């Protein structure tokens, strides 16, 4: 009879127990945003009527064309943070930390805080359900995560109405999105896939990157509203149909065709440029 090899069994046991730990790469830490991708859109910001590359519906296009940046002067609009599907596009230096059950040492949630407007977000990892449809929607939405190998996959629902691009391209409160977080040593990549039954004809996919930064300190962010322009109660800045003064500005500056800058699914693909 072959002798039972205790040392090999123990080694195998350790490997099996260690497998989840190997697969679930820790995302905690201070992460500095890397802007090598879509830098012009993300830092100075997009121009008016620059909708190319977004699979928007005709309704989204018309709504974006009626959007006036003066809307952001209204006090109620001034302190809105980016919603979580867009937060990574802005000044997105980010802290990620874990919430651990002190008894079981199980991961309850990941929390994130982003620099601009300092939105804090929770990604529940304890298997809880999403809230019912009549629950409140928030800027960060309700997020649950699970591991697929070493990739953290997050599903987010219950979002407030937001924006697909910060030049008036809308994203509705019925949208949901999925994220995939990959970590390769000191680099983290996030893939965001937004589905919006109201304003998108196809899933809208973007990626964002961060580099670990052991010296990063995210400062406090206070926002107080002020009355910038004394307007009559209820006045809402917007452009009437056909009266957007910036309609052709971006297209003419870069010598682009209007049907390109007005966006739509077809403008996402290389075949459109060709």
């Amino acid at each position, binding site marked *: 009879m072959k002798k039972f090899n205790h040392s090999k069994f123990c080694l195998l046991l350790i490997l099996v127990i260690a497998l989840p730990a190997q697969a679930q790469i820790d995302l905690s830490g201070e992460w500095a945003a890397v802007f090598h991708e879509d830098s012009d859109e993300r830092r100075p910001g997009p121009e008016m009527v620059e909708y190319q590359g977004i699979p928007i519906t005709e309704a989204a296009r018309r*709504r974006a064309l009626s959007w006036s940046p003066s809307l952001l002067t209204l006090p*109620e609009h001034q302190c809105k943070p980016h919603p979580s599907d867009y937060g990574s596009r802005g000044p997105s230096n980010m802290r990620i930390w874990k919430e651990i059950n002190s008894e079981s040492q199980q991961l309850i949630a990941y929390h994130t805080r982003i620099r601009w407007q300092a939105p804090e977000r929770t990604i529940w990892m304890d298997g809880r359900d999403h809230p*019912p449809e009549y*629950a*409140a*929607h928030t800027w960060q939405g309700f997020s649950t995560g699970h591991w697929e190998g070493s990739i953290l996959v997050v599903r987010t629902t219950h979002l407030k109405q937001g924006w697909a691009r910060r030049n008036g391209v809308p994203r509705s409160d019925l949208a949901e999105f999925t994220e995939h977080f990959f970590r390769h040593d000191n680099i983290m990549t996030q893939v965001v896939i937004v589905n919006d039954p109201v304003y998108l004809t196809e899933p809208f996919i973007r990626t964002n990157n961060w580099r670990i930064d052991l010296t990063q300190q995210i400062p406090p962010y206070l*926002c107080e509203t002020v009355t910038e322009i004394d307007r009559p109660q209820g006045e*809402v800045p917007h452009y009437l*149909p056909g009266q957007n003064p910036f309609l052709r500005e971006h297209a003419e500056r870069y010598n682009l065709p209007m049907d390109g800058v007005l966006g739509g699914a077809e403008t996402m693909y290389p075949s459109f440029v060709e």
Partner: protein
Amino acid sequence: MIINNLKKIRSTISAAICFYLLVSSVASLAQQNFDDVEINVLHVQGNIYMLVGEGGNITLQAGDQGVLLVDTMYAPLSDKVFAAIRTISDKPITYILNTHGHPDHIGGNANLAMMGSNIAGGNTIDLFAGTGEQAKIVAHENVVTNILAQDNPIPIEGWPTDTYYTAKKDLFFNGEAIMIIHQPNAHTDGDSLIFFRRSDVISTGDIFTTTGYPFIDAANGGTLQGILNALNNVLDMAVPADRQENGTMIIPGHGRLTDEADVLDYRDMLTIIRDRIAYRVDQGDSLSQVKATEPTFDYDVRYGADSGFWTTEQFVEAIYNELSAQ
């Protein structure tokens, strides 16, 4: 002059048809089987809960003095509503406040009022038989007028027992100041906002919903401008917490729980639509010309309806009639 009169007549007929369709749809709902309807309870904050089922949302305030309800859904749901109330409080239903007089919000008034009681005092004890044996029902006095105009009004036991005709009425109940604030000519001419000051919750009735364009009940004095005025009042009253979120919570007439940012988006949308139609009216466009410009197109997928008692077409027509009559 003749054209203006014709417009007014058309506006009145159109509004009356809409109201008839609402009441008819409510009447047909009354024959519907409500067996499958669940009443869900959501704690909002402080003493306030939101009850969600079929019909208008119910706001519930509970405390040592009793239970206060804002609106009562449909009559066939009263037992389920009562069962849901009992999961929160074993105190009597003492007050029912009505945001307006539509059957999907006041249908359960009689049943739930009779399940409750109130403390009668002073001269009223001797003057009226039965005083104190049911919950008080509070509403703006125009709600009574609206009920009287209905073909199949709710039972008289469900009519308001305590009306007000001024700009507002105050209550103090369960240790909380409650302001009942009339919103003239909004969804109807009898709308009230209910503001729970300590819990920091506003119940709007159908001045604000998350499910569709607002029903402008012109037959009962409703106007878009009144709705916009009311939404602007809500924005003035609401104070968001950090990052423009939460703080004052807002329970809409239909749909999900909200806060100021949600009301803001709705107010912005309605203002933009009004401005677009007003511009065309100023240009002298006819209703069909205005419709051809699709003034609501960018919001229709989210809020519009091609069928039912209140379609997008009727919404645009109501705004056109209102603006062209000015």
